């Protein structure tokens, strides 16, 4: 919210500069986001007198002027249409410096010399845009320095962030009151005297009925007759403009002015439009419609608080007035409404209507119920002074259940308990007194002023105290009394181990959004997607059920920029809807993506493309890192993601923990990826109990050497090699410590449906050196049994 430094000074004496004040406020919980100097600095601009002028001989729109600054006369070219001889004007001399780093130099314009510039308000930084030069009053003194001349006009706008709990500071008086408390000064409230010359009482002209006392705890109203609608005086317009408000007419300006001054939203009705002479405050019924001040017809949400002319709505309470009762140029009698509406009713209605106004923003943060009469009278007084209004006697004030004085039981030990330092009672009371918080002599409590309805608990008073002595004055402690936490949850370590293993395998970690368009995700979800009710855009409307869409997007991004070799992974939560409508299921998944060449192009590396076995190797290595072997990899039933033939599922424990394989062309197309991609996805949350590292126990290294034997079986391609190896292991028994395929040969010398699997065997005993004889039996047995079982033949 914007505050005028000059305006604030009317209520509190300020010796501090606006910048020093801003710093104080920031340290007291009112963050000053910006201090704007109203008149930016300029120099060597004086008040000049346009002595005479004639048209430029070579340019219709330019005038050649003689400007007198009291000491000398200068020939100046001016392009403004509103320049006339005899005017007093701001005149920038040669060498003048104007805002925006603009220096005035001697110039020749269309062959005629110009020694300076006659300035507009915009050129002096006072307006965004000006039509023509700034014409000064005739009685200004020629030759005066113009920056000094404007000195009394100088102001600073403090843009202050008011936290939602401090609605009481959304006004000049509220902020001045706070500043007085912070700086230990006295506040000056405005003083004025009403003269009730309206000829009758307010109560004779209007009656008020409040049907919902919770929604409208207080309704005060007063009538001012015979006002003359017109423009507001200069001082009022200036003040409103300073805080960012556009003047409209004197009556509207006055209600806005009082809103800014007191923080009490007011509404001025044209009394003649309240035909029944009765104001009713009620909740809206289903299906009611209403045209607000801005000319829009609105469907009123049920239960919206309305101000009615008996039954006909004339305003949406606390939010916006209606077109039907608006003050217009012919209005003579004004009904000033000064009411308080509940924080809740305005917040709900404002949200439903999509309306946020100066009034509603204040009611949402709650308004002081003790302030309606003062603010109303202030407005009536100003209508009397400015709009020649005649104030009716007395007012209407419905306040059936006055809000009781609020007290907080407060033990001074709360300060040491929460702040870690103790303070003298005397100091505490002194600081509280500055905030208007007084000791209750009868009890151990403090009386809270009505405008501070944010203060409810002892902790709130602790903050008030801390705020006033300053957070920097509070102690810091480095030895906590809370013991170091037990770390029985190892999931964090588990996830970081997965990550660090993958990085060791040469994979780079990606971080992608969780939100995608429906079309990007559909294929990845077997069930429905978790969708956002109010998405930022359609392409951020659904939550990912898989890590792969993000990886594919990032792959496309890199490939399009010439980075075609990608080894990437990402971990994060994915989302599946809960069938009962509860929290979605949101496990951590790991996604891996490989694409391009296995190695960066180099003279000494093979030029191979990544294939299925690169991905399989990563998955196997990952499990190996956790010493986990109890998993199986099986051919996948056809899926939308992976290409048939190069797609597998990973089964662990009781179920499927993930899949990997070659990504289908149709999927690549969605993400505009134009090269082969292998991907894997694992539910790492499900794997957690299985992969939890078991305690490592040292196993002694075999003392006796192993014997190595090689075998080459010509075997049908359809026989899975793992079956053969497992069978060999079975036959080999305890002394066969290793068996693996070390080469695979396909060639024209072999039948088309067969290949040669070359298998290496290691035999080793823990208690002796094995002899060739011992092994030979086993070895021959292996050959014989495999030949039978797999229809394999030994290759020479």
């Amino acid at each position, binding site marked *: 919210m914007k505050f005028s430094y000059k305006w604030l000074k009317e209520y509190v004496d300020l010796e501090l500069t606006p910048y020093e004040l801003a710093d104080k406020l920031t340290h007291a919980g009112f963050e000053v986001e910006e201090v704007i100097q109203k008149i930016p600095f300029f120099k060597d601009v004086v008040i000049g007198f346009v002595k005479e002028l004639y048209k430029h001989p070579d340019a219709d729109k330019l005038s050649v002027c003689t400007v007198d600054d009291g000491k000398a006369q200068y020939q100046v070219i001016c392009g403004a249409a509103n320049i006339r001889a005899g005017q007093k004007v701001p005149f920038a001399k040669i060498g003048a410096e104007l805002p925006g780093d603009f220096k005035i130099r001697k110039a020749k314009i269309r062959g005629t010399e110009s020694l300076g510039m006659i300035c507009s308000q915009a050129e002096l930084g006072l307006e965004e845009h000006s039509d023509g030069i700034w014409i000064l009053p005739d009685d200004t003194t020629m030759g005066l320095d113009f920056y000094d001349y404007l000195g009394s006009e100088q102001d600073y706008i403090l843009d202050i962030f008011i936290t939602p709990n401090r609605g009481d500071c959304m006004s000049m008086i509220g902020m001045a009151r706070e500043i007085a408390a912070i700086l230990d000064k006295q506040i000056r409230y405005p003083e004025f005297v009403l003269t009730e010359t309206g000829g009758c009482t307010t109560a004779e002209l209007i009656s008020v009925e409040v049907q919902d006392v919770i929604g409208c705890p207080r309704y005060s109203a007063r009538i001012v007759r015979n006002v003359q609608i017109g423009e507001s005086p200069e001082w009022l317009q200036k003040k409103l403009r300073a805080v960012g408000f556009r003047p409209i007419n004197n009556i509207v300006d006055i209600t806005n002015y009082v809103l800014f001054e007191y923080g009490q939203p007011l509404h001025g009705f044209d009394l003649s439009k309240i035909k029944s002479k009765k104001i009713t405050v009620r909740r809206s019924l289903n299906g009611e419609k209403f045209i607000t001040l801005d000319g829009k017809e609105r469907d009123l949400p049920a239960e919206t608080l309305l101000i009615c002319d008996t039954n006909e709505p004339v305003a949406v309470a606390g939010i916006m007035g209606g077109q039907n009762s608006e003050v217009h140029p012919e209005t003579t009698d004004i009904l000033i409404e000064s009411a308080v509406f509940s*924080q809740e009713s305005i917040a709900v209605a404002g949200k439903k209507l999509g309306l946020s106004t100066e009034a509603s923003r204040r009611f949402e943060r709650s308004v002081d119920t003790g302030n309606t009469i003062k603010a109303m009278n202030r407005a009536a007084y100003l209508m009397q002074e400015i709009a020649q209004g005649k104030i009716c006697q007395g007012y209407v004030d419905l306040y059936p259940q006055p809000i009781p004085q609020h007290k907080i039981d407060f033990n001074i030990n709360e300060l040491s308990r929460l*702040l870690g330092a103790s303070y003298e009672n005397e100091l505490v009371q002194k600081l509280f007194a500055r905030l208007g918080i007084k000791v209750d002599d009868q009890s151990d409590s403090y009386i809270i002023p009505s405008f501070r309805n944010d203060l409810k608990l002892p902790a709130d008073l602790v903050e008030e105290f801390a705020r006033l002595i300053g957070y920097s004055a509070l102690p810091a402690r480095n030895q906590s009394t809370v013991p170091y936490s037990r770390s029985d949850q190892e999931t964090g370590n588990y996830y970081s181990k997965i990550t660090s293993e993958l990085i060791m395998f040469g994979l780079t970690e990606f971080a992608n959004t969780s939100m995608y368009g429906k079309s990007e995700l559909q294929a990845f979800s077997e069930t429905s997607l978790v969708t956002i009710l109010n998405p930022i855009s359609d392409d951020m409307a659904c939550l990912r059920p898989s890590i792969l869409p993000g990886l594919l997007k990032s792959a496309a991004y890199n490939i399009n920029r010439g980075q075609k070799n990608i080894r990437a992974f990402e971990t994060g939560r994915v989302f599946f809807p809960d069938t009962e409508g509860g929290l979605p299921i949101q496990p951590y998944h790991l996604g891996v993506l490989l694409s391009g060449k296995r190695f960066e192009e180099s003279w000494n590396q093979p030029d191979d493309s990544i294939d299925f076995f690169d991905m399989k190797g990563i998955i196997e290595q990952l499990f190996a890192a956790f010493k986990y072997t109890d998993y199986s990899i099986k051919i996948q039933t056809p899926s939308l993601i992976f290409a048939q033939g190069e797609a597998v599922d990973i089964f662990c424990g009781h179920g499927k923990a993930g899949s990997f394989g070659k990504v289908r062309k149709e999927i690549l197309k969605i993400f505009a990826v134009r090269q082969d991609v292998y991907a894997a996805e694992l539910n790492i949350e499900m794997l957690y109990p299985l992969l939890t590292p078991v305690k490592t126990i040292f196993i002694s290294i075999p003392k006796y050497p192993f014997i190595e034997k090689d075998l080459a079986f010509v075997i049908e391609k359809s026989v899975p090699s793992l079956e053969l190896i497992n069978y060999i292991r079975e036959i080999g028994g305890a002394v066969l410590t290793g068996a693996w395929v070390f080469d695979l040969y396909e060639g024209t010398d072999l039948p088309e449906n067969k290949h040669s699997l070359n298998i290496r065997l290691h035999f080793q005993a823990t208690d002796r050196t094995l002899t060739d004889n011992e092994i030979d039996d086993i070895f021959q047995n292996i050959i014989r049994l495999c030949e039978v079982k797999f229809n394999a033949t030994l290759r020479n």
Partner: protein
Amino acid sequence: MLEQIAEIKNLFNKSLQEIKTLPDLETEKIRFLGRKGLIATLFETLGDVPQDSRPVIGQQINALKKEIEIHFSELKNKLNLLTAGLQSVDITLPGRALPVGKRHPLHQVADQIKAIFSSMGFEIADGPEVETDYYNFEALNMPRTHPARDMQDTLYISDNLVLRTHTSPVQIRVMESRKPPIRIIAPGRVFRRDTPDASHSPFFHQSEGLVVGEDVTFADLKGVIESFAAQMLGREIKVRFRPSFFPFTEPSVEYDFNCVFCKGKGCRVCKNTGWLEISGAGMVHPNVLKNVGYDPGKISGYAFGMGIDRLAMLKFNINDIRILFENDLRFINQF
């Protein structure tokens, strides 16, 4: 004569130092041992030496000659070894590259945060990213019509489910599930209804911190934040605490670090204030303690937040948050 012998010996020692290649060696060999070499010249002048000292001097010349021969032959072996095979590899060709993986810079910073707090005895906690309205707002003292809800533009899944707008719901989940003392941080992803631009992303990352127990004070909060700042960004970093407002803390604080770009002198990044806003913190609000069944009269605690993306941007001088999530390899490989 003896001086001459000594001089040649010196010359030879110097020569030994300077020989670097086989051709050098050959030249020097001729200079010393050649038919008209220095040793030969010495032998020639032997005739000028008095008869009786001739055998002794002759012996000395012979000894020198022998020594030179031995040294040259050793040197020749050495040079032969050194030069052997030199021509067989072009050592200027690049080496065989290993695939190198990188931790995403954001997670590097998260790791650092976790390490720092772990060293201060904090445990890592976690919570769901889609939360109930209760955990994200209500339990944190933000009923439906609370104006503070406007400070956080929320993405809704249903009337009752939201994408969590902060990591604070983890506070509630942890406190509900156990008794004090508690000492946790909870890093994770959060969401806001912000259109992406250089300083906004609809999802970003925070870490919550929470310490609850008896005799936990604002002084502890200050101590922990100051200690974290020093470990994260260096001892010279100053921390500033300002009063603020959050519905779930009282007293509430906003904490700033002094600008890492201008060292607090004032620059464009810190809008000439010399300070950079980091995040909010405060003493856990009594209503929050009550909501989880603690006695606010006995138990107290502090909570704090921090923006992980923001710290990463500060640390690495990144000026556009969006680049963090583009996953351009040229970006990630820088860290």
